[in-house]
């Protein structure tokens, strides 16, 4: 209505406009990388195919908790399928699958297509870049390590006769739930990122991640079967059982099917092994990203 017939439908080249608005600097840059990383990890803004794996993995991770809660609601606490302690061990296979499929998405192409100079010519440092990407990966993993166990928690509280009393009973476990979820997310993100940093292509990175956990799992199981001194080593060839041992040492509670049960090793050894995993991962990242020429 307000536009006159002459101006309506005409596009004018208004020339170059300068930007005088806010600049969020390094903080804005890091948060942008984390957001974009999360979108990539969950296939948001991409084809439907890219969403299948991350959302499928998350759904599968939630499924046992949903079933456990449903049983509890319908039949009361007759059986204890999953506890806060064994849940992550029982769904453990999903974590490497998510890591192998999605972590390469995050960093491999930046190296392969030389996008890094464009990042590093912006207000961030190399360390900021690695921390932002690692943060995005850890947050994504946290959805798998935290949400199902929180659902279990909510089920227990809300299905109880006396919700307030039940919350009082269960609230103490929140530290353990969040602590264990963070432990798994941060360590697995570090391992995944380190492998991706040295792999030249997404497929190699995915293969290497899967191989590490698959071979680790198989070797660990066979050690456990052999029994004796080998059983003590069994938890240490699989990163997931190292994490389970660390969880048990930090928060207590057992996971009956984990090789940690069969091994006779003092708890702090698992923490040491976890620190070694973290240390090696970050050393690889430091060397790799310092060397990458821009």
């Amino acid at each position, binding site marked *: 209505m307000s536009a006159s017939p002459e101006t309506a439908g005409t596009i004018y080249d208004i020339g*170059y406009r*300068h*930007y005088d608005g806010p600049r969020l*600097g390094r903080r804005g840059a890091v948060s942008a990388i984390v957001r974009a990383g999360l979108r990539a990890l969950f296939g948001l803004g991409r084809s439907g195919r890219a969403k299948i794996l991350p959302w499928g993995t998350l759904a599968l991770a939630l499924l046992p908790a949903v079933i456990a809660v449903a049983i509890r609601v319908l039949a009361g606490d007759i059986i204890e399928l999953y506890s806060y302690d064994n849940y992550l061990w029982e769904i453990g296979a999903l974590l490497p699958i998510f890591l192998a499929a999605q972590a390469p998405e995050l960093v491999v192409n930046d190296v392969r297509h030389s996008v890094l100079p*464009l990042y590093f010519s912006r207000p961030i440092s190399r360390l900021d870049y690695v921390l932002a990407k690692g943060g995005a990966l850890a947050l994504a993993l946290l959805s798998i390590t935290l949400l199902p166990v929180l659902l279990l928690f909510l089920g227990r509280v809300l299905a109880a006769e006396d919700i307030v009393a039940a919350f009082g009973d269960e609230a103490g476990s929140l530290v353990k739930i969040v602590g264990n979820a963070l432990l798994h997310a941060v360590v697995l993100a570090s391992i995944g990122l380190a492998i991706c940093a040295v792999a030249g292509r997404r497929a190699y990175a995915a293969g290497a991640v899967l191989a590490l956990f698959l071979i680790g799992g198989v070797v660990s199981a066979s050690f456990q079967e052999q029994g004796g001194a080998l059983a003590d080593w069994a938890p240490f060839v699989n990163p997931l059982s190292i994490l389970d041992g660390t969880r048990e040492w930090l928060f207590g509670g057992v996971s009956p099917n984990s090789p940690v049960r069969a091994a006779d090793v003092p708890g702090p050894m698992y923490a040491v092994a976890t620190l070694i995993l973290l240390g090696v991962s970050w050393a690889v990242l430091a060397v790799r990203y310092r060397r990458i020429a821009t």
Partner: protein
Amino acid sequence: MALISTRALTKRYPGGVTALDGLSVEIDEGVIGLVGANGAGKSTLIKVLLGLLSPTSGNAEVLGLDVATHGGQIRERVGYMPEHDCLPPDVSATEFVTYMARVSGLPAGAARERTADVLRHVGLYEERYRQMGGYSTGMKQRVKLAQALVHDPRLLFLDEPTNGLDPAGRDEMLALIERIGREFGMTVVVASHLLGEIERVASWLVAIDAGRLLRTAPLASFTERTGQLVVETEEETDALVAALTARGIEARAHGRLATVELGGGGADAVYDAVRDEAVARDLPLVRIEHRRHQLEDLFRDPATPTAGGGSA
């Protein structure tokens, strides 16, 4: 105050290669041509100024900030277009440039708006929604330029921006660079080994060779007239030179070209002498012209004129 200043800047790579060797230079506003042969240290200089590489010794300031201590702040207000491919193939130009704007620190809304503006300025329209893997070299160069411009930098570093472009694409890129300097009011440092291109856009030149400063001056002073005449003949150049020398005129032969010193006030006499000697010998004369300095002279023996001989 200079926008860029370096003092005794030296960069040695671990392999022992010295890319910058005690370079001291001041750069002011305008479109600045950073010229030198491949390997002269142009890219290394840009990377040091961006804080991507740390110098072995010496120091540098950009926008009044020390590159060693304020890299982040500098990079917030500086744009960089690298020489090589740097675009992921599986995202669209719009998506990528918006993301790069945000990594430069722009809020989401501003990033989207400026991306639309900048892609239009570099001449990318409908294709900006397509994945960049299918782009031509020309389109990729435009996106690379757009991501360097999107956060409205005060200073723009372009490393070999016409690399891989066909002649039409080169013309368009050079026109764009000229417009960025003039209309957008940004200082643009264009690194190139192609002097002919730099000549078309730059107002000031910084010439480096083997990591050292060769010369820094306004473009005009690089191409001003010399006190020499270039004479090209089909044959008997040596005889012509000998005859001129016999008349007391300083002349030298370089194949079919002769350079003749014009001297002070006797320029007309020299022209006449060349004409007379040529006529006397019935020489097939190709051209006679007043030689200008050429950018190429910077990088070669100053006594040798070029076949293009200053028709500029």
